């Protein structure tokens, strides 16, 4: 089976792998690089659990053909901590009890980060819009919205 060489930046580090034709980025990250933070939820683009940032933009890794990220930068939840310190969003999610089963949390955090990176002081409606592609079956969304708003207003100052 022919494999295609692929190089890109994964959380700031250069990585080189060989992928089968048609491999999606989620599989490449999880099975070839070993970054288990993006999760498989549907493979259809409907749940957002596999969300990552590609060149700073929110993308669904399950719908991204792996070889299209050649030479680009891919950021996952594994890369958002500052050394041993939690990202303000991670701390806000914890403080607001914004996770139950935790499975949607990586995708939610990446969607929230994509928002705050561009819009550090979002309104509630903007937060709702930003996480609207991400399904959570446990929390009823309210604590997640509150966590993102808390990170926006106070998290940065505390960080």
């Amino acid at each position, binding site marked *: 089976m022919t494999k295609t060489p692929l190089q890109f930046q994964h959380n700031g580090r250069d990585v080189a792998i060989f992928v089968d034709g048609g491999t999606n980025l989620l599989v490449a990250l*999880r099975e070839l690089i070993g970054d288990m933070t993006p999760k498989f*939820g549907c493979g259809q683009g409907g749940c957002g659990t596999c969300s990552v940032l590609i060149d700073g933009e929110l993308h669904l890794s399950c719908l991204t053909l792996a070889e299209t990220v050649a030479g680009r930068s891919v950021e996952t*939840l594994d890369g958002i*901590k500052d050394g041993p310190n939690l990202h303000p969003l991670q*701390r806000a999610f914890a403080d607001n009890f914004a996770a139950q089963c*935790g*499975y949607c949390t*990586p995708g939610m*955090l990446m969607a929230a980060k994509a928002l705050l990176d561009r819009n550090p002081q979002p309104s509630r409606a903007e937060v709702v819009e930003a996480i609207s592609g991400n399904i959570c*079956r446990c929390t009823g969304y309210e604590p997640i919205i509150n966590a993102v708003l808390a990170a926006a207003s106070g998290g940065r100052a505390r960080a």
Partner: protein
Amino acid sequence: MLELRKDLFADERDDNLKEIGKGTQRQDMLGHVTGTSPYFDDHKLQGMLHLKVVRSAHSHARLRRIDTSEAERSQGVRRVIRASDVPHNLNTLLSLINFGKDDEPSLAVDKVRYKGEPIVAIVADSPREAFEAITKVKIDYEPLPAVFDVEDALKPGAPVVNEVYPKNTFTYHETYDRQQLRFGDADRALASADHVLEQRYQMSPIEHAPTETNGSIAAPDTNGRYIVYTSTQALFFSVDTCAKILDVPSNTFHFIGGTVGGGFGGKVDTLTEPLCILGAMLTGRPVRYVFGREEEMQYGPPRGAERIYIKDGVMRDGRVVARKVRAYFDSGAYTRLSSYAAVKCAAHLPGPYTIPNVHGDVYCVFTNRTPATAMRGFGVTAMDFAIECQMDKLAHLVGMDPMEFRILNAYRDGDMKAHRREAKNTALIECVQVAAEKAKWPIREEFKRMSSRKDGGGIRAAVTLTPRETHAPAAAPIQQRTTYDRAPAATREPPPPPPSLPTSPPPPRPSAPSHGATRFSSVFGTRRR
């Protein structure tokens, strides 16, 4: 926003505690926000193979011929698993507590009973190669008439969904086609009630829709054992189910789970583990079997639909004097857990109210749809919907405020419940009072003063005289055997016939179980001697 009403029931509580009652951070929160909580699928194993199943294209059909020869030669295929490869290809989940007969194969034999039923499993090097092989499995179906409505399924001449239960109903106490509840004389009370209201309610099926789909990874471990990473909601339930189906001792397996991406009841059925382990046994390689989202939505078991008829008698002063309920659980093609939920539902009647005459018949019915299973509020959610809509209508009928109507009829400490146990530790009245306060819903002073701890018991503690029913429920015929139907695993004595029944021939005495599954209890539903 959450407010703790420490002022209520304070005299029953010791609040002098150090850790209990604190809003301590979750032990798993750090793992969740860093994405390091280990779900079953987060285990990367060398040389992992992928398992996919061929699912039935029909809701009900005879399987004339299954040709897997082309699939076996398909690129990347390591193994095609057929029904005959499954050591004990017939099970019912609650056989672990000796409840019900084995009625469901891991892979269909002779017949499929719902659309999407697994028929053949493919183990291949990649998901793509498994998908390709699936299209090469040739199945010759002979479609059969299907039944989808619970009441149609009970009509004479309805297609038999599952030959283990030829009347399309689960068999209770080895005799009855339903679980009964009889408390007082509902018919007599209805005849003398000021108003009678009969209504029909329908609960839809519900998909659990956890963000993590069902799945497992099984791999040969050292010393002849198998390690299994699983999304199960019930670890030993799954261990023992696999031990039974694969006919090996339960300590063959090392199950690891406990961190699950949502369940809500949809991960109790051990859907993937048996075939996944069998794949690992037959190939000697790690095997991963994960549901896709469409599979999860359509062929993962839903909360079953329920149809409920309620007939109530109410007096002008607002007292509900009789409640008669007939409920049908749509179990789909196999029993799974619906049979048990029907008993729980019967126990729940007539809701949290003291009603002196209650009559319940709860049926677990088989239809040609995806087997149903447990879900959050199992056996109760739909009945609560029906009862509480009914309570609203009754309050409207007698011109009472719906809050006051509920307080008036609420059960209190010392009251006799319809399943003939005394009510204790009740708090419905206080919940209604506090909700009214929060919502600024005006209720009269006398209703604000009522209490779950006052005015219960006494005459309300009596078991109302319950007439014997003259008609005897028809005895279930001796179960039919089909070719794949091995001896049932249950070990139970035939129960003595209920006193009001004519003697019917006892069912054949089953043989002892051959598998290593744990027995949690030896007897259910029969009187202990």
